[in-house]
């Protein structure tokens, strides 16, 4: 059949329309999800692990144990929350979700997650201080896959030239004295991250809690003393001005130059520390009057989002239980350089790597940011807090005024 030019034009136009439509409407991850068939989806924030990694093998093994095929998708951690919210809105949430712990209570409150009681997920093996981040309204949502936290890295060579013994740093006074000696010796003191994002609050909390302050009262005298400590470091040039804009990564890059005595950073930098080319050590962050300051617990929870049926949720919980079981979680935590949430696995980790003990201790005294019954109130406290830290460090407000303003807007 011979088609007229007009018909051909019409066909071309229709094809173009089809293309435009499909280009606009295709949604990544839209097809997988709660289909209820044999394929279960797992979303995680670990894009650094590809299909050949131990983590993906573990996911497949756990799926096989539960009798289903597993399709895994990795997202950037900040992206994951939005993706999950959108997916839940469209009814295409994953079957198993691995998500950053402070987000858990928000997702739970939004009705995105199912409680452990409903699904049969078991968090009893994990340390209670870590599980606390997933508790809201008397229910527990998910199981921590492991934890990271903050401690003080130090440069051995810089400390020995300045004649500082890291073991003697037990409280803020001895830390200040060490910083004074280091800067007097012509080296740089300490670097950390005070950026105006969640990272800034994360780094400030060990000092805030270490002073005895509570997130429910941002303008207490203890809170002010913590901010005054940071401010005094900038004023006395113990810390560089760049901390105001530092992420934890750029702060680490400063420490990696070998010029700095101390850096506040996390468990996840251990791999980089070994590559830094100088001898380093780690001590816990001291609290104001001595002892280990409670640092915030980082790390993800394995959770089960709401699905079309009880059976799917139970199967998803079986996969999640397997992912966090002591037998499988050691490999995952080693790959992530996380401290396990399970006591017996922590012992195995220290046995394999004795210098990991300081991190295990730090995690034992770590606190969940959304704990203390704060839940979804935490983000509304964290943002004013980092704003106050920035205002004080830049000198636009005194620590006291800045924290009073923060307390007012956190209400």
């Amino acid at each position, binding site marked *: 059949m011979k088609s007229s030019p007009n018909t051909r034009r019409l066909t071309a136009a229709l094809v173009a329309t089809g293309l435009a439509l499909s280009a606009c409407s295709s949604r990544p991850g839209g097809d997988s999800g709660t289909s209820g068939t044999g394929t279960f989806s797992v979303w995680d924030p670990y894009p650094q692990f590809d299909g050949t990694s131990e983590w993906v093998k573990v996911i497949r093994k756990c799926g096989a144990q539960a009798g289903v095929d597993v399709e895994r998708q990795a997202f950037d951690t900040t992206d994951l929350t939005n993706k999950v919210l959108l997916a839940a809105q469209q009814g295409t949430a994953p079957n198993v979700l691995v998500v950053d712990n402070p987000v858990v209570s928000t997702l739970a409150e939004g009705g995105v997650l199912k409680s452990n009681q409903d699904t049969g997920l078991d968090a009893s093996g994990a340390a209670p201080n870590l599980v606390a981040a997933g508790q809201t309204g008397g229910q527990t949502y998910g199981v921590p896959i492991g934890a990271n936290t903050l401690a003080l890295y130090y440069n051995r060579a810089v400390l020995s030239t300045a004649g500082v013994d890291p073991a003697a740093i037990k409280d803020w006074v001895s830390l200040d004295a060490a910083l004074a000696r280091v800067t007097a010796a012509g080296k740089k003191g300490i670097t950390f991250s005070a950026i105006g*994002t969640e990272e800034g609050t994360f780094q400030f909390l060990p000092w805030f809690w270490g002073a005895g302050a509570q997130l429910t009262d941002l303008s207490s005298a203890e809170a002010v003393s913590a901010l005054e400590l940071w401010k005094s470091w900038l004023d006395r040039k113990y810390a560089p001005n*760049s901390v105001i804009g530092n992420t934890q990564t750029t702060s680490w890059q400063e420490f990696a130059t070998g010029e700095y005595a101390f850096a506040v950073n996390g468990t996840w930098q251990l791999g980089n520390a070994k590559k830094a080319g100088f001898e380093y050590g780690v001590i816990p962050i001291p609290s104001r009057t001595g002892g280990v300051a409670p640092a915030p617990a980082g790390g993800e929870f394995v959770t089960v989002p709401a699905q079309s049926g009880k059976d799917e949720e139970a199967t998803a919980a079986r996969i999640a239980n397997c992912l966090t079981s002591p037998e499988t979680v050691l490999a995952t935590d080693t790959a992530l350089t996380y401290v396990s949430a399970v006591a017996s696995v922590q012992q195995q980790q220290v046995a394999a790597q004795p210098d990991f003990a300081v991190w295990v201790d730090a995690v034992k005294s770590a606190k969940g940011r959304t704990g203390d019954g704060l839940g979804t109130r935490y983000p509304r406290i964290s943002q004013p807090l980092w704003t106050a830290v920035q205002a004080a460090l830049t000198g636009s407000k005194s620590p006291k005024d800045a924290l009073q303003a923060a307390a007012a807007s956190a209400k």
Partner: protein
Amino acid sequence: MPRRQAVGWAFLLPLVAYLLLCYVYPLLTNIDLSIRDHTVRSFVHGGAPLIGWDNYAKVFADPAFGPALRNTVVFTVVSLVFQYVIGLALAVFFARGFRLSVTLRALLLVPWLLPLIVSASTWAWMFNSEAGVVNAALTFLGFGTVDWLTSPDWSLVAVTIANIWIGIPFNLVVLYSGLRNIPAELPEASSLDGASRWQAFWYVTFPLLRPISGITLLLGLVYTLKVFDIIWIMTRGGPSGSSTTLATWSYELGFGTMLPRFGPSAAVGNILIVLAVAAGLLYVRLQRHQETA
């Protein structure tokens, strides 16, 4: 319907479908978001109550609104003025045509071609108060150092400088092609009549360039109003909001914390759209005025 008309509509269909799906629908969704009181629960399960203008009222009453609006205006106006003046100067310079002018012009386009994440990170690194090359140069020249990204007095200056640098190539290219379209006889004739080089430019070339200048500035305005990536990468709008514009504020409200505030975030986004549309209408009106004059 006559056959010809049907074919005409069929040709229009892709465009209409594209506009509806990729412009009208998101726009309406954004308006809908901005007039509802969204929590995470209602975002997922629906049923957010209509609250009319409450989100807008909240945004206008927020202590962050004034500084964000002021920063947006300063950032946009200063960026436009410098981008345009430097772009025009370079365009005039290259319009004379000389050896290597093509190569040099191509080199000046590099900022345009670089991914924004690369150029913004590079600027952040150069402006670093500890190890940045800008402070090293200032020290070398005998000036004091400046906390470009970490001082509330300088952060807006730093991001504006970076944005000017990124915007120059666009102005250069458009104005250069505009200059090429001006017949060479006109400035030539004026110089025969005794006009100096400056007079020839100011009284002949520049007025002839006016339509091109107008569209360059309008496009620049729309681009600059919504600049987000450069500021977010360099300062996150900080320290303590000193480089926050309406665009970064909207993002911060919606995605910057763990508890998204979709309503106010969408409201700020809509205010930005209104600003851009107002500028566009002003442009159309000026142009019409020019044509009738």
